[in-house]
């Protein structure tokens, strides 16, 4: 299968959107494009599973085009299990995001154009095997976020948009320094950005020690590494619903994927060297995020801060450097992406009807909009790690893997991180109890309507994925296994 279709299709969709008129046509095109993309991704999934049985290469469906010959920059794409899982996540969130924004009246053409364009960046990022191309797609995904939040957002949107853009740009700048370092200091001549080529060569230890922090922190900013997480709460809560879903569901995963695929995979020595810093920061992130969530009164802020806590598990799992914990980190990326997209969708649905997101102003939503409230509850229960949903599986795997790291301090960190789940339960149940259950606090709420077909469809799509992962995690585990194995084999070679 030709992977380039994954970026050509969104590109075509985006261009068609520019030429059609009116909300109805625009959203139809966007939905058709994203559904086609979903079908394409499922096709990729099955083809990948089939191909993998008789092809042991690390990356399948590779295509290599010499883009900038003199700098040895290639458009080199290929997928392994991890990328396929991320691409699947992206396509699900995109479809759900388009459906949730079905009634986007103001500047609908620009809105959907930017949404699709953002997804293009994400797809390109996940399939790239050339570091420069990867960086290119990473930055492609930044600017749409700025515009989406700044134009269609709510609250202090300009501030949030600017903060997000600048912090992510800062991350990109660090990443670029890291990439340039890897490029020039790995090979003395015939320098290359090619991920597989660099992975085969062992980067000199000093180079690793200098440039690993740039790459890890750079990608870490994208995935809310403490203390660079401050853009997350503001950005997520100011963004329009679909943009929040994209931000938390897709965009933060770019960072986690980069931390794993680029920083850890290419520089395992340095990852081992700086392991304690990564674990320290991510543990702080997990606990700080959880406690900060308890103080929030705005539903979006609750989910945004809990995202800081949950993506902390991704970095935590990566930092532990065991086979199981990295598996768990990838599963947590997928799970968190689905869960948080669902959560933001539910919050968006409530907000568009009740016109408030404040927990203490809401109440009794279950009585007036049972479907949306159920969706909200499912997202909440996934978030607190109830068995049967994806959150439990992912976090469990991270903890299991972390415990395998026998160092005492790391075990203490694991216990601390584990304990944050209790806090999660507190804030989720408290928010749900106040907003969803209980008496109706405002008489106007009696007139509110329940979800429409598009919202139901979007929620169902995400819930199905969450439940499937929850009850049959071995599918996901099996899918990503080959990818994490490649990374771990390189890491374990160092540790021995």
């Amino acid at each position: 299968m030709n992977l380039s279709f994954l970026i050509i299709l969104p590109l075509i969709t985006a261009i068609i959107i520019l030429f059609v008129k009116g909300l109805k046509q625009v959203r139809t095109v966007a939905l058709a494009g994203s559904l086609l993309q979903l079908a394409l991704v499922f096709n990729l999934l099955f083809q990948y599973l089939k191909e993998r049985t008789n092809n042991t290469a690390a990356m399948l469906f590779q295509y290599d085009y010499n883009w900038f010959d003199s700098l040895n920059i290639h458009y080199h794409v290929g997928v392994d299990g991890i990328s396929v899982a991320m691409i699947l996540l992206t396509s699900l969130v995109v479809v759900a995001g388009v459906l949730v924004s079905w009634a986007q009246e103001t500047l609908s053409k620009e809105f959907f154009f930017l949404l699709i364009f953002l997804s293009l960046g994400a797809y390109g990022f996940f399939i790239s095997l050339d570091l420069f191309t990867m960086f290119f797609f990473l930055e492609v995904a930044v600017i749409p976020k700025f515009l989406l939040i700044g134009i269609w957002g709510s609250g202090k949107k300009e501030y949030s948009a600017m903060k997000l853009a600048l912090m992510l740009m800062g991350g990109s700048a660090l990443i670029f320094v890291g990439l340039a370092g890897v490029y020039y200091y790995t090979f003395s001549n015939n320098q290359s950005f090619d991920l597989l080529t660099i992975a085969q060569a062992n980067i000199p230890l000093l180079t690793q020690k200098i440039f690993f922090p740039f790459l890890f922190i750079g990608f870490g900013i994208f995935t809310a590494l403490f203390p660079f997480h401050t853009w997350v709460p503001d950005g997520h809560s100011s963004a329009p619903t679909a943009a929040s879903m994209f931000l938390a569901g897709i965009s933060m995963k770019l960072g986690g994927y980069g931390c794993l695929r680029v920083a850890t995979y290419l520089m395992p020595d340095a990852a081992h060297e700086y392991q304690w810093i990564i674990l320290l920061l991510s543990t702080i992130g997990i606990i700080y995020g959880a406690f900060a969530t308890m103080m929030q009164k705005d539903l979006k802020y609750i989910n945004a801060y809990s995202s800081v806590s949950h993506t902390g598990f991704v970095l935590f799992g990566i930092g532990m450097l065991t086979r199981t914990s990295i598996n768990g980190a990838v599963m947590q990326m997928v799970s968190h992406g689905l869960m948080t997209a669902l959560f933001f969708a539910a919050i968006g649905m409530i907000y568009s009807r009740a016109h408030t997101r404040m927990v203490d102003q809401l109440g009794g939503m279950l009585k007036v909009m049972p479907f949306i409230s159920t969706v909200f509850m499912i997202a909440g229960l996934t978030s607190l790690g109830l068995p049967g949903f994806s959150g439990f599986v992912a976090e469990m795997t991270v903890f299991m893997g972390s415990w395998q790291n026998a160092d005492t301090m790391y075990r203490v960190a694991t216990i601390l991180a584990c304990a944050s789940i209790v806090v999660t339960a507190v804030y989720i149940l408290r928010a749900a109890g106040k907003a969803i259950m209980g008496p109706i606090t405002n008489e106007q709420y009696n007139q509110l309507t329940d979800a429409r077909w598009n919202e139901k469809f979007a929620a169902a799509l995400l819930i199905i994925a969450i439940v499937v992962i929850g009850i049959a995690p071995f599918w996901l585990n099996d899918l990503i296994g080959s990818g994490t194995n490649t990374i771990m084999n390189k890491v374990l070679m160092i540790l021995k």
Partner: protein
Amino acid sequence: MLNDFLILMKQELVITVIIFILLFIKVGSKDWKNESLLKLINILLLLNVVFSFIGNQEGVLFNDMFKTNNLISFEKGILSLGVFIISLSSYSWLQNHKHVAEFYMLLLSTLLGMFLMISSGNLLLFYIGLEMSTIPLAAVVNFNLDKKQSSEAAFKLIISSAFSSGLLLFGISLMYGTTGTLFFSELPQTLTGTPIQLLAFILLFAGFAFKISVVPFHLWTADVYEGAPVAVTSYLSVISKGAVLFVFVSVLYGAFKPLAATWYNMLFILSVVTIIVGNLFAIRQNNLKRFLAFSSIAQVGFILIGISGSSQAGTASVIYFILIYVFSNLAAFAVISFISAVTGKETIDDYKALYTTNPFLSWVITIALFSLAGVPPTAGFFGKYFLLMAGTGIAGSKGLIIWIIIAALNLIISFYYYLRVVKAIFMDANETPIEKLSIPLLPKIAMIICVAGVVLTGLFSFIYEYIFSLSSGF
């Protein structure tokens, strides 16, 4: 001999012919209407662009005084293209101006001067070209005839360029005194790095730094840019800066190669200071012309990084960046020039909520600003990062990694002020936004050319590869 002369100096001759056509039109008895005159001039300039890019040959004339090769012809082509775009986009401004023919005569003489400067094989011809490109420029800076600010700007320009010319001449004479030659090709063999040669080199360097407004020689820039008509501002910031940069690169890699260790350190210090000062001042500007003036100072700081790189990659990245810079800066100036000519509004506050009334203009200036900020998929992304890469990997040894880190962090600051304008256009509320404007054909063509250039120059790698292959001569 005559044949050689006709072929090798083709680009200069075409411009001279255009200047003479304008001269005859001006002194002729027939009274031309501005519209038809402008159309004729734009057609002539289009022909000039076409002639610039085709049928160029390599060779030298006048005992090595004048040299040309594919790279030089290509550089001249970029400048011709830039002048054509500026001419298209200043249509609305010149439409009602009394002295259209004079404007173009002066402008094209400066272009001719730049061509001679780029082609010069000798410090004297270089100096003549430089002066020829500066003095008429002061006259066109004064072309908003009823504005006091405009003549003030012209005065500032002429004073500061006279000063920098003085430095240059002093440097040239010292250089001649210590080496006994003024030919670029003979300088490397005679330069040994004695103190007096270094002094001469530093004076020359300062002269260059004035022209490309490197900090601390930048003080004239903002005032002149603000006072001059927008068309001239764009010419100053893109064409004349680009031309001097072209020469700067070739001179550093060619004539002053033996002093590389010296100029590497000078470039490092100047570039860091330039980037930081340019960025910090750009944040505070409200007038768009001043804003672009300071942002262009910061851009030059980035170009200096590319210059420090190994000769081929460094040259290629600088020329590539200037090509992109021509498109992106001129796209921004095309919008500013048009809006300024029609409404007289030039500040960021005036641009608030521009998107509600003029979506086309908003997108053009936004894409231009994204390219200047280095956001993909615009070409500015490639241009900027290729400069940084050229600076990281200088041949033989490695570049200063701290330089790259400082530059990369400054990208964030520059990002902030470019996004500030985007924010004003798209997100801020405004009770009296600029009314809906209908754009005449010629400025519209200019904007479309620029946007196409901004998008395509990056994604289609053959343009960079072509420049890279041309740069191998150094």
